[in-house]
């Protein structure tokens, strides 16, 4: 339980910092910390496979690409909002408030007593690799394969965009 609060605090603090940091590079680094803390939370939920994949795919691969892009574009600028873009900031605040207002009814109707206090109530071993594999490759085989076709399409598109002459 202590670990949960610790990881939760880290995740939240990092998430706030992602938005609050002036430098894009730091924002990305805080996003990595946030993802790692979330992975720790998955581990507490006894889903080690999800936790590991979270770190490998998101923190380890996708965020590296994010950082590549940030670094190659604009490494050291502490992007201040220029006057022209100021309205974007106001727009952001407005959108955030709207989302919060929309969330309020859900938060109010949230019944705390129904939240499971530990994971023993869950079906045992949901996060175990074998179970996930069986679910994906038996029950949801078709959607899974269709997703991979989608990714293939994206890859082909990226190659065509990236290369002028093929």
């Amino acid at each position, binding site marked *: 339980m202590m670990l949960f609060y610790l990881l939760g605090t880290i995740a939240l603090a990092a998430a706030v910092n992602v938005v609050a940091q002036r430098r894009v590079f730091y924002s990305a*680094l805080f996003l990595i910390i946030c993802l790692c803390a979330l992975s720790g939370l998955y581990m507490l939920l006894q889903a*080690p496979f999800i936790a590991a994949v979270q*770190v490998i795919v998101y923190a*380890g691969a996708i965020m*590296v690409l994010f950082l590549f892009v940030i670094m190659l574009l604009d490494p050291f600028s502490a992007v201040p909002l220029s006057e022209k873009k100021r309205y974007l900031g106001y727009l952001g605040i407005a959108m955030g408030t709207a989302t919060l207002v929309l969330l309020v009814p859900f938060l109010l109707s949230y019944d705390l007593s129904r939240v499971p206090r530990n994971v023993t109530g869950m079906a045992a071993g949901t996060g*175990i*690799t074998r179970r996930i594999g069986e679910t994906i490759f038996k029950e949801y085989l078709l959607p899974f394969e269709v997703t991979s076709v989608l990714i293939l399409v994206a890859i082909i598109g990226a190659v065509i965009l990236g290369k002028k002459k093929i």
Partner: protein
Amino acid sequence: MWIDLVILFTKAFVLINAVLILTSFLTWMERKQSAVMQDRLGANRAPIFGVRAFGLPHILADALKMFFKEDYVPPGGDKLLHTVAPLAAVFFALMSFAAIPFGDAIRVGSREIKLQVLELDVGLLFVFAMMSMGIYGTFLAGFSSNNKFAFLGGLRASSQMISYEITMGATLVGLLMIFKTLDLNQIVREQGQLLWGWLPSWGIILQPFGFLLFLTAGFAETKRVPFDLPEGESEIIGYFVEYSSMKFGAFFMVDFVETILIAALTATLFLGGWQMPYLYGDGFHFPWGTTHSLSSASVTILQVASFGIKVLFVCWLMLLIRWTLPRFRYDQLMRLGWKILLPLSVANIFLTGFFLILLQSR
């Protein structure tokens, strides 16, 4: 509760110290081995009271020298990230060892202690996760130095590590298909079985092709000589060009720690881990019928020793290759990773699947 924590910390403490001692030993080993290969004497200029001890005091001398150098952060660089980068590199490299089993479970009283710091269902994935986080060490070092050469070195390092990580994962799929688990301890247990009653079913025997591919990809992960483009000690400049003092020492160390990590992984996955041929929980059972019973304590010692010897052997092999091969060019490196190793490892997956189905249908 408390006793569990104490056991856990003891295991972690012993493991980390073993790795670090082996790391410092490897620096000496590399010098001596290269000297032998090149017909030189090698390091022998740090005697303590006239005792040269084959140059072993160099380990101490090097560490002292590192600590007393000026710690310099380049102006215009990012001081925080400049400091975090070597820490991250060392941290994630050492963390990976947590999932590696170095012996079978031992029994003390009614308590079963597994000789593995972190018992995980997804141990292998954990190691890979830590390795992929290790990229940030090199990456941040290159970025925070405010130096174009370091920056390019960091880019080279991270793209190389990402590319070869994918290959490395693909080379292991064949092995996972055979052992049907990601739990490293379980993988080692499976390797204790015998094929046809006499041949230990180690990964290298079931997956010889996968072993070669994995070792090659693992070599690229350690960023050492045939693949040392990220750092390029002799000509091109690498990501830690702006580092001095122990921060440089940390990067220097990480190279060796990663060598040991790849060696430990190779030993665990392909060389039977802590298994010794014909050694079971109660002693040796040779296939020709003789048995030789041993106490459980000596069996444990033999297991840990066998794991240690395997790791040392692979380290030696890696040093041998490091001092034999010249460096790749960067395009050659990328071609090797993406156009040769990856297709070969995919072919390996298909071949393994083919044989598995063939064996099942019989």
